[in-house]
């Protein structure tokens, strides 16, 4: 049960959140200008790294805020911004 830092509500139990997948995959500015391959890259291709990963979470059972955290996928430690200091606990 991870402790996830909501920017509004502070650290809360993982069960209050919904996972939102990889962060920083912006909706293309001009989707109609993209080739099928480029559009498919936006739709379907996501990173799945072992180690640090920027990902989105939604505090669904709380304030409904969407936000980004960096998590080490091997340890579930969560880091803030560019720091290597874990924020939870």
């Amino acid at each position: 049960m991870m402790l996830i830092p909501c920017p509004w509500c502070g650290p809360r139990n993982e069960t209050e959140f919904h996972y939102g997948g990889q962060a920083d995959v912006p909706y293309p500015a001009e989707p109609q200008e993209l080739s099928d391959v480029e559009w498919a890259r936006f739709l379907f291709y996501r990173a799945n790294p072992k180690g640090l990963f920027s990902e989105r979470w939604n505090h669904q059972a709380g304030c409904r805020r969407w936000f980004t955290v960096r998590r080490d996928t091997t340890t579930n430690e969560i880091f803030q911004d560019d720091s290597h200091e874990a924020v939870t606990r």
Partner: protein
Amino acid sequence: MTGEYRLAEGGRINRDRPVRFRFDGHEYEGFDGDTLASALLANGVHQVGTSIRYGRPRGIASAGPEEPNALVQIEEPFPEPMLTATTVALHDGLVASSLPGQGRLATDPDPARYDAINAHCDVLVVGAGPAGLAAALSAARSGARVIIADSDTEFGGSLLGSDEELDHAPAGRWIDRVTAELRATPEVTVLPRTTVFGCYDDNYLVAVEHRGEDTFTRQRTWHVRAREVVLATGSHERPLVFPGNDRPGTMLAGSARTYVHRYGVLPGHRAVAFTTNDSAYAAAVDLHDAGVEIAAVVDVRPVATTLWTARCVERGIQILTNCAVTGTSGTDRVSGAQISPVPSGDSAPTVASELDCDLLLVSGGWNPAVHLHSQARGTVRYSEEICALVPDRATRGVRTVGAAAGTFTTGECLRTGSEAGSAAARATGFDADPAEVPSSPSGPVTPPQPTWLLPGLSADSDHDQFVDLARDATVADVRKAVGAGMSSVEHIKRFTTIGTAHDQGKTSGLLSSGVIAELLGVEVAQVGATTFRPPYAPVAFAALAGRDRGDLYDPIRVTAMHDWHLAQQCPFENVGQWKRPWYYPRPGEDMDSAVLRECHAVRTGVGMQDVSTLGKIDVQGPDAAEFLDLVYTNKMSTLKVGRIRYGLMCHADGMVFDDGTVMRTDEHRYLISTTSGGAAGVLEWLEDWLQTEWPHLRVHLTSVTEHWATIALAGPRSRDVLARVTSDIDLAADAFPFMSWTDGTVAGRAARVCRISFSGELAFEINVPWWHGREVWDALYEAGSDLDITPYGTETMHVLRAEKGFPIVGQDTDGTVTPHDLGMSWAVSKKKDDFLGMRSFSRADTVRSDRKHLVGLLPPADSAVVPEGTQLVELSELPEPPVPMLGHITSSYRSAALDRPFALALVKSGRDRIGQTVYGHVGDRLVPVEITEPVFYDKEGNRRDG
């Protein structure tokens, strides 16, 4: 009660409180403070059941949760399968029976109550032996919020099973003093009989508290979030592998010592101790002093330590060094042990002597209980020094001390525990110094001699050299696995099942690694050990469920009119968490006849339905129109105030995921509806786009589902009924056109009335504040009584909409269906620059001509309804597999209006096949079905204005 096996005095049992219990049909007596195992031993009962594979008699082998053998089924007071007799606290009225390795579920429901509790603390100490108590004391004195939990009924850990002294007084005094201080400290929670069984991310630990059989709540699950954790979970003694090592009467040496000191029980009268280390000597000496004859201490080491040699000589206990037990005899209980000099090389051992005994003590060293450390993702390493796994790298905020860290002298356990407790408290911001600890006379512990397999034994003896007693797995099984080419301990575990029983390999895990290492000719460190996973000890499902069972399993959402529906005794359909009336049977009606009647009423007269469960989201802000244009496939900015439009929502991949109506209530305000089950998901999804992609849009979203109770009034007579309860709304078709809304008064209450129809008939949706829902429902029902107004449920709604070809998202779609596949291109704007899903409509895959289309199906008029999910095939006879599938039926009903069965289906190139016959595969038959347009009834839409 003192007898042959119960000492006249001593032990921590309460001799003033005898306890009667039954085991395997016999009446016995024990004392308060006994476990079931200690009470059985006190009555001379060693054998508890038979083994799972070979049916061999098995006895009590330990005194704690590591017990591999003594599984019992509890019959009374509450039925529970597969508990270890060594952890069942004895109480009056206990009825238990032995088990051949496998439990049986009770047929009666468990009437006991189970609870859950959440807790937060600065420092959680797991284990209340010398290290845990010292840690808790240091942390508690700093003012930190401390929880200390221990599986046992009383604190003290290993001290309870010995006669050790602390500060030159019995250790019990120190335990009592520390426990009393902890109990008296306001910020400390003291939890005996509480097993911490799981250690999860970010120091989230879960424990089960056994509160006793006569308490209000039998067991309670603790969910603890701790800032710092001190693990003082102790260690488990390891048995030894030798032929016949499973006979009842074979017991871990330390456990025998516990039975003497803690329970005043003699586990036998004449014992042989077989050991690789010092701890069996302590057991032999203590048992001797308590009156057990010690036939010999058999030590595989060439030389015994001076200290223990001296103590044995004092007592006349024979020590046989460089010797091993290479066989046992006896039927239901061990009666003798064969002793051989430890063979060198491959030469077979020669039995030098056979010693009579009724108790065989074994000790192969001690395994630190690294389970929780490892569950928390700490790493372990094999220590050559203690021949066991010890914690290596710890996760942040987790400290392991005492025997769990491989520290085996009481003095060191106390010192390191005290330091860990203060360090943990300091890490959470408290000014903590290590508490002073008492002096302990216990000397240094000499390391065991690594002994996994006795050399020189013939392969025949493999079959009764047991590695995992609980699984009846032997050296022969391991040899077979290794012979098959396996070298990974994880593979061998799964092949042999070693370590997979209720005890999860507490005694057998590392032992099997050692045996594997010997067979492979490698170091134990290279073999390693299998992963430690929660739960540390078995947990009853009832304890995990707590009160979240039955009606409390999941939240139940009901509408304002729910009591009325209940009074009609209608069955309910679960839609998400909502309870929706399914149909309203009249006396004697089944579902089919009720639904036909309800459908007929709506098509010819008037019906009413509670549609309050539809999701409703209030969308407000200057950019609301722009926002909705981006998330719906059609254009909502052109919708005029007062009007309503149907809308489809697609994900960016172009697949439909929800639909509903959009009502413009003001220039900058819309009320949108969603499917009943999809409301939360739609809101989350809208928030996602608003917050992360278009934060510049000034829009706010509010869920208002439960603000409005909504009643659908449908049928050609619906206008007549509504007219009777409203005077300020002009209901004429031209004044109040289809797909518009108006505010007015209905049955004396402010209402928002919409002309929306999901049946194709003239229909009104009346929205009133939730509080007035029941009242307005009653008024409408009353107003329509002379017209036989008919309440209808979700089934009738589904039939009526299917007759009109209206899809249900999630039933007729499955996340792979575009608006065009549904034949709803009319709901996709061609005038917008972009909206979610738009780009995907021109992907190569979405423009394929053989995509599945939503079409209608007509089975023969006199046939039965073809089941939903039926696969459709091309030919009237099945070809050889693989049979190409054309699609499947998504909705299928009998139509009252058409007087025949009909269906909707997703069919490859379906719209190009209209008029063709395909076949539905039902059971072993193929039913011909004709493909049609999806609209079966009132294709022209003439009925919507009445």
